[in-house]
C-alpha cells in the first residue's frame, strides 16, 4: 500500500496534531470528546490484547477498569501524588486478575466467558451496596481542575496502549497468543505454554484496563463507585474492537473514534438510552457480516 516512511510520516504528523490540539483550540467540547476517545482507545486496546490476540473473550473487563478507577481515586484524594495513585490502580487491578485468572483459565470456552461476566457483576453489586455514595472532588481540587492535563494524560494512555499492542504483535508473545487463539492443542504440542501465555495476556490486558480506570477516575468530577463497574465498559470495548477490527493494531483506534462520534450524535437525536440499542444492532451486524471489522474491509478495498 504505502511506503513505510510515508506511513511513519502520516502517523507522526497526526500525533503532532493531537499533541498540539489544546494549543490550537480552547473549545472544551472538542477537547472532551478527543480526551474520551483516547480513553476508549486505551480501554478497547486492553481488551483487544486478551480477546483479539489471545482469543479469550473476557466479559468481566469492567471489573478491572473499576478496581483501577476506585483505587486511583481514593489514593489520589487521600493526598498521594497522582502518578503513584495511577500506578497503584493498575497494579491492584493486575493482582486481582492474577488471582482470578488462575482458576478462571481452567474453565473452557463459553464457561470462561460467562464466569468472567459473573465475577464482574458480583464485584459491581458488592461495590454498589457498600459504597452507594458518589465521590465528588473537594472544592480546592475542583478550582484547579484542568481539562488540558487530563487530555495529555489520556493521550499518554492511548499511546501506551497502542505501543503495547504493537510490541505484542511483533514479538514472540503475540505469536504464542495467536497460536492459542487458533488451536490450543496444536499450540501446546508446538511448545507454547498455554496457561502461561493466557495469564500473560490477561495481566497485560488488566494492567491497561486498570490504568484506563485510573485516568477516568481522575477525569471525572463526580463518580458513583458502582458506575465504574458497569458492564457497559466491557461491552463498549467489545463493540469498538469488533467494529474496528479485532486482533489488529489500528482497528480499536478507528473503532473508538467511530464509537465516540456515533455515540455523541445518537444521544443528541435519540431519546434516553436508545443509542445503546443501535450499538447492539451494529455489533450483531458486524459479527455476522464483517467479523474482521472495518479495517479488514478497508484493506480489501485498497488491495483492489
Amino acid at each position, binding site marked *: 500500500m504505502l511506503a513505510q516512511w510515508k506511513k511513519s510520516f502520516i502517523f507522526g504528523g497526526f500525533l503532532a496534531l493531537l499533541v498540539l490540539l489544546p494549543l490550537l483550540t480552547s473549545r472544551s467540547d472538542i477537547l472532551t470528546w478527543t480526551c474520551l476517545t483516547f480513553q476508549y482507545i486505551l480501554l478497547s486496546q486492553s481488551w483487544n490484547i486478551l480477546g483479539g490476540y489471545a482469543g479469550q473473550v473476557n466479559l468481566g473487563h469492567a471489573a478491572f477498569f473499576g478496581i483501577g478507577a476506585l483505587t486511583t481515586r481514593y489514593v489520589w484524594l487521600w493526598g498521594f501524588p497522582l502518578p503513584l495513585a495511577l500506578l497503584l490502580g493498575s497494579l491492584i487491578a493486575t493482582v486481582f486478575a492474577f488471582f482470578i485468572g488462575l482458576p478462571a483459565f481452567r474453565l473452557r470456552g463459553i464457561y470462561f466467558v460467562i464466569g468472567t461476566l459473573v465475577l464482574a457483576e458480583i464485584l459491581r453489586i458488592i461495590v454498589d451496596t457498600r459504597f452507594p455514595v458518589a465521590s465528588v472532588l473537594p472544592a480546592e481540587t475542583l478550582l484547579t481542575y484542568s481539562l488540558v492535563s487530563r487530555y495529555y494524560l489520556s493521550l499518554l494512555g492511548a499511546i501506551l496502549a497502542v505501543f503495547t499492542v504493537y510490541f505484542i504483535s511483533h514479538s514472540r508473545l503475540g505469536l504464542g497468543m495467536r497460536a492459542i487463539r487458533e*488451536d490450543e*492443542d*496444536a499450540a501446546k504440542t508446538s511448545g507454547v505454554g498455554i496457561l502461561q501465555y493466557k495469564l500473560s495476556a490477561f495481566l497485560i490486558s488488566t494492567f491497561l484496563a486498570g490504568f484506563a480506570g485510573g485516568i477516568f477516575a481522575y477525569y471525572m468530577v463526580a463518580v458513583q463507585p458502582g458506575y465504574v463497574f458497569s458492564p457497559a465498559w466491557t461491552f463498549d470495548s467489545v463493540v469498538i474492537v469488533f467494529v474496528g477490527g479485532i486482533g489488529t493494531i489500528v482497528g480499536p483506534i478507528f473503532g473508538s473514534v467511530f464509537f465516540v462520534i456515533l455515540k455523541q450524535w445518537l444521544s443528541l437525536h435519540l431519546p434516553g438510552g436508545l443509542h445503546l440499542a443501535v450499538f447492539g444492532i451494529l455489533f450483531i451486524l458486524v459479527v455476522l457480516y464483517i467479523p474482521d471489522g472495518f479495517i479488514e474491509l478497508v484493506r480489501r478495498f485498497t488491495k483492489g
Partner: protein
Amino acid sequence: MLKIEDLSKSFGGLMAIHHLSLDVYEGEIVGLIGPNGSGKTTLFNLISGLLKPNSGRIVLSDRDITYLSSHNICRMGIARTFQLTKPFLQMTALENVMVGKAFGCTSTWNMKKVEEEAKRILEFIGLDEKSMWKASSLGVVERKRLELARALATKPKLLLLDEMMAGLTPTEVEESIMLVKKIRDSGVTLIVVEHVMEAILGLSDRIIVLNAGEKIAEGSPQDVVHNPKVIEAYLGEEAFTDFGS
C-alpha cells in the same frame, strides 16, 4: 530412545491402550500400523501429552515424561503431526512455522532469527512460495506439509507422523517418502502411522502392529506382512489385503 512401559488408557469402559510396551531406538523409522480404532492416535496423544494414561510409563532417554505437560514434552524433543491437520488458520504459513521455531527446543525471542529459520524450513518442504499465504487458503496436501514444517521447526529428536500420506497421489507419496528419509538422515527418529502400505513398507526399518490397544506383532516389514495374526486383524481391511502377499 523412547520406552513405553505397560501403558494403559481407558475412556469410560473402553480400553483404548491395554498394557502396551514397546521401544523405539535412536535413528530408526518405526512404522505403526493396525486396523482403525486400534489405538495408534491415542498412543500419539499419550506420548505428546495431550492425554494422560491410567497406568504405565513413557520414558524418553531415561527421563519419565508420562505426566509432563505437552509444551514441556515438545521442549524435550518430541514433535507430532495430526491426522486431521491443525494449522493456525488465520496466520500465514510462515507464522505457523515460526511458532514451532520460537517455542520448540531452540526456544528463542529473536524474531528475526525465527523468521529466517522458518523460511529455510519452508524451502526445505517446498512451500516457500506460499509463505505469506494464510493457512486457511492452503489446500489439504499443502496443510499437511505445513504441519510437518511446523513440527520440524521445533527441532525434534523424535517425530510422530500421523497419516501423512492419506489422500496423496502416488507421485506425492513417493515425494513424501523421500522427504521422510531425508528427515531421518538429518538425525531425527520417527514413528510413522500409515494406512498407505507402500509407504509403510518402503519407509520402515521395523513395524509394530497394534490391534484393540495391544501389540500383536513386531518385526521387519517382510515378517510382519506374512504374520498370520496381522493378516487376521486386517481381514476385511482393503488396504492390507491388497498387499497381503
